[in-house]
């Protein structure tokens, strides 16, 4: 009978425990306090506690759907939940043990917090008892929080739990572990301690999209001894410190998710105008398990002054660039090598060699530029003079000339690096968004074209300088000087034609930038150098004659074509209404140049020349002044179709993240064209690929929404999006599928109709 009764009691007990809900009324919990959109309660781990033995309590907040409370670092906005404890004498409470937070978007801002239910653990330690028997004690918590959806509402609750405090050694009744399951689950939501890596950090720069390099925190993770290599998956780091990191850090900076690594780097962009604390801590979250079953690891505070971190790109890429970059790490010897940004994926070729090759070819092409060719052909003719005297001497002249070119390019590179170090943002594509910069280029090329037409000569022209130089110095030095002069004359030409190569160089570490400039220089000097080695090839070099003058003038027309393009860009930037006035300023500048050219030559007397010079300068100055005023005009509302590409007749709409979401919500695929008025390759791609009939038909068949993001003017939203896709600039082509909203297909920079059709088919 007693046995049955006992069995009954035990089974009741077991049944009671089995039906104990994890959510729902918890033993010993406080009353539930209701506040707007939040209910709060305090739940102890057990109601019978032992002196000297810590126990946990949970502050449980339940939020209405779509309402969130915040983590210790709330992110871009918000306020962390706080608890003020009122405890019996001798009791101490630890800090809140935060479960792994989630990211929430509030428009373009990102916050860190929780939705639904959050269980915030705190460990409380009772003092060692004085031997008395069980006492009743009360723990009080004053909890404050901020709960937000679109609007934010501060909330608070005063919560109390009653507990029984037993002396040390007292036997604990099994029934007092009332909330074991809840606490086990709550502890499961905590990030696990970091047993895998040694972590160090350093503040340094990394290349950014849209020109300027960005300030970043580089985190280095190195496996502790005895730990195995691990594929870390897609990572996100939640810092506990506010106002340090840019929460919008996206997948563009994570190591290859699938590669097993024993060491990797994470560069995390710093918050605009944020702080740089000496120590950082936080939670590293992956989309796959890192330690045991846990995807979240707590990274304890680590110092941010580790000077020995090689901020190397070796383990740091987009999966697409993985091949490229592992070869890169061999190519980059010293300095501070940095990750390769964006661009067409170079599949098997080591990227550095490809770039240097391009630089070399670019240098060769420079010889054809109007700035250089006239000078160069004359150099060749002077070479013939030297060759006639002594073949060996000619070869040495070739070396001297090459040296002159290379060193001048190094000086240019030095200037570029100095400017960069001084904090200027030198990125060629980026500068094309600045009306002032475009204006400067317009004036430089216009005047240079006039010079080539013969409207005025620069001093006695470069020909004369050459003669002057050689008359005073020995052969070797004169060839060296010739090389330097040729480089200088080439400078204005390098900007628009070598834009991408130089823009790339501007973002590379000093060593790589110098290499690129060196190859550019070698490319430019090579024809001359080859001619000194194979003087026989001189047969193929055109003999001097009247043709030179005609050729020079023809080059002037090429420059004028550039001026026309730049005037168009200027119009796109500040408004078409300004363009006629700009042309007037050019007219003024032209008149100034003519006055100088006609009356500033040595054939006139001193006073006449000085007057001419001053008058010419006056014209030029007023033209520039006016031009600068025009450049400050407020740009017009950017409308689709205002940037040509002739897309007005096919329904392209203005891009915005909201428009993308809307279209995807309707189940339609979205094609986004990131373009700019000054981007020639964008125009070519639009003409070739996007206006192709077959492509247009495919767009219609797939019911695609076509959006255009115009980056003619600087636009932070577009810059941010480009950065997210690892690009420095336009073009960028994205194809979103409603089935996979967050991972659009990225099409290559050089677009063909075939590529677009293929991408559309794969939807």
């Amino acid at each position, binding site marked *: 009978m007693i046995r049955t009764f006992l069995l009954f009691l035990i089974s009741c007990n077991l049944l009671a425990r089995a039906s104990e809900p994890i959510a729902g009324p918890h033993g010993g919990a406080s009353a539930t306090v209701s506040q707007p959109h939040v209910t709060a309660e305090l739940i102890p781990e057990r109601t019978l506690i032992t002196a000297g033995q810590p126990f946990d309590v949970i502050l449980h907040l339940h939020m209405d759907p779509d309402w969130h409370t915040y983590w210790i670092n709330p992110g871009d*906005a918000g306020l962390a939940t706080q608890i003020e404890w009122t405890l019996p004498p001798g009791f101490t409470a630890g800090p809140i043990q935060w479960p792994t937070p989630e990211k929430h*978007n*509030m*428009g373009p801002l990102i*916050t860190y917090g929780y939705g639904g239910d959050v269980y915030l653990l705190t460990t409380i330690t009772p003092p060692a008892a004085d031997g008395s028997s069980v006492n009743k004690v009360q723990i009080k918590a004053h909890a404050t929080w901020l709960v937000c959806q679109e609007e934010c509402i501060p909330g608070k609750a005063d919560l109390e739990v009653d507990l029984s405090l037993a002396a040390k050694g007292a036997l604990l009744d099994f029934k007092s572990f009332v909330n074991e399951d809840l606490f086990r689950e709550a502890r499961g939501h905590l990030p696990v301690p970091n047993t895998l890596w040694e972590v160090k950090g350093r503040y340094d720069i990394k290349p950014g999209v849209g020109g300027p390099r960005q300030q970043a925190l580089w985190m280095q993770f190195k496996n502790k001894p005895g730990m195995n290599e691990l594929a870390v998956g897609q990572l996100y780091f939640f810092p506990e410190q506010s106002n340090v990191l840019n929460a919008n850090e996206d997948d563009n900076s994570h190591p290859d998710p699938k590669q097993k690594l024993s060491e990797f780097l994470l560069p995390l962009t710093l918050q605009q105008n944020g702080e740089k604390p000496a120590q950082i801590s936080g939670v590293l979250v992956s989309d796959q398990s890192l330690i045991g079953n846990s995807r979240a690891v707590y990274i304890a505070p680590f110092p941010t002054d580790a000077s020995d971190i090689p901020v190397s790109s070796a383990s740091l890429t987009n999966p697409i660039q993985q091949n490229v970059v592992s070869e890169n790490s061999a190519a980059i010897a010293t300095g501070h090598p940095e990750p390769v940004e964006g661009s067409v994926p170079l599949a098997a070729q080591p990227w550095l060699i490809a770039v240097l090759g391009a630089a070399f070819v670019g240098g060769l092409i420079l010889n054809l530029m109007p700035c250089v060719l006239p000078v160069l052909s004359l150099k060749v003719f002077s070479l013939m003079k030297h060759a006639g005297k002594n073949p060996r001497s000619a070869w040495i002249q070739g070396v001297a000339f090459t040296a002159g070119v290379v060193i001048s390019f190094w000086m240019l590179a030095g200037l570029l690096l100095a400017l960069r170090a001084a904090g200027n943002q030198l990125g060629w594509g980026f500068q094309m*968004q*600045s009306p002032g*910069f475009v204006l400067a280029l317009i004036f430089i090329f216009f005047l240079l074209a006039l010079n080539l037409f013969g409207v005025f000569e620069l001093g006695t022209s470069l020909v004369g*300088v050459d003669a002057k130089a050689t008359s005073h110095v020995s052969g070797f030095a004169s060839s060296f000087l010739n090389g330097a002069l040729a480089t200088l004359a080439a400078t204005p030409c390098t900007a628009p034609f070598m834009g991408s190569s130089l823009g790339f160089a501007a973002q590379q570490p000093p060593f790589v930038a110098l290499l690129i400039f060196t190859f550019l220089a070698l490319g430019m000097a090579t024809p001359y150098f080859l001619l000194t080695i194979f003087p026989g090839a001189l047969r193929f070099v055109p003999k001097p004659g009247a043709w030179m003058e005609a050729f020079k003038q023809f080059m002037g027309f090429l420059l004028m074509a550039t001026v026309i393009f730049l005037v168009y860009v200027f119009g796109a930037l500040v408004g078409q209404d300004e363009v006629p006035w700009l042309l007037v300023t050019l007219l003024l500048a032209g008149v100034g140049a003519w006055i100088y050219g006609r009356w500033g030559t040595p054939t006139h007397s001193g006073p006449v020349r000085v007057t001419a010079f001053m008058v010419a300068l006056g014209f030029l100055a007023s033209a520039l002044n006016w031009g600068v005023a025009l450049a*400050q005009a407020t740009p017009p509302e950017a409308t689709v179709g205002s940037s040509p590409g002739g897309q007005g007749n096919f329904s392209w709409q203005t891009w915005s993240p909201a428009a993308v979401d809307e279209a995807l919500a309707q189940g339609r695929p979205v094609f986004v064209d990131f373009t700019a008025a000054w981007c020639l390759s964008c125009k070519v791609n639009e003409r070739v690929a996007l206006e192709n009939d077959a492509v247009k038909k495919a767009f219609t068949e797939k019911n695609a929404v076509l959006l255009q993001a115009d980056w003619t003017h600087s636009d932070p939203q577009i810059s941010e999006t480009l950065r997210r896709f690892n690009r420095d600039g336009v073009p960028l082509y994205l194809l979103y599928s409603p089935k996979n909203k967050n991972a659009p297909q990225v099409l290559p920079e050089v677009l063909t109709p075939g590529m677009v059709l293929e991408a559309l088919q794969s939807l």
Partner: protein
Amino acid sequence: MRTFLFIAICASTLLSLGLAAENTSALATIGQSAPNFTLQGSDGKEHSLADYKGKFIVLEWTNPNCPFVHKFYDSGAMQKFQKEETAKGVVWLRINSSAAGHEGSQTVSDLAAYVQSHHVAATASLLDPDGKVGHMYGARTTPHMFVINEQGTLVYAGGIDNRPSPDPADIAAAKNYVTTALDEAMAGKPVSTPTARPYGCSVKYASN
């Protein structure tokens, strides 16, 4: 040589002139020139940052519905700061970057009524509904404060004080970073705390 120099001087003059004409591209960064902008004010007129060249300027991002803005306005504290600083010749510009249809979005007449009813003592209250200026300055919260010195350099960007809470009782004891930055900048000293954590509700930009 003369030609050499001539070309070099011409090129660099033109380039620097050109770069000087630049005005709106950069993101606001401490230590650099604060980027110019033009916004419509509660008086219906356009106001540009450049209009106030040569003065100390405070930019205050605000949202009439945010509890943290209420903290300062219901208690009269923000109006008091505005009055004190404008009396010293500081230009105080309030900016609302709430997008249309979002919390706190105001029309010009809403804004004018608010300025009136709340006895706002700022120099001007401006509307930035497309969020361009907000993004340029990286405004994340309301309030989010910026201080620009007489040379047009941004010297402070961050929270208004060191007590991030919605409780007005915390204002008196808090260290106000804005008034501190202004005092230091006006005395010609470097700003000791150029940045501090901005706290408040998120700025209601158009959704992502």
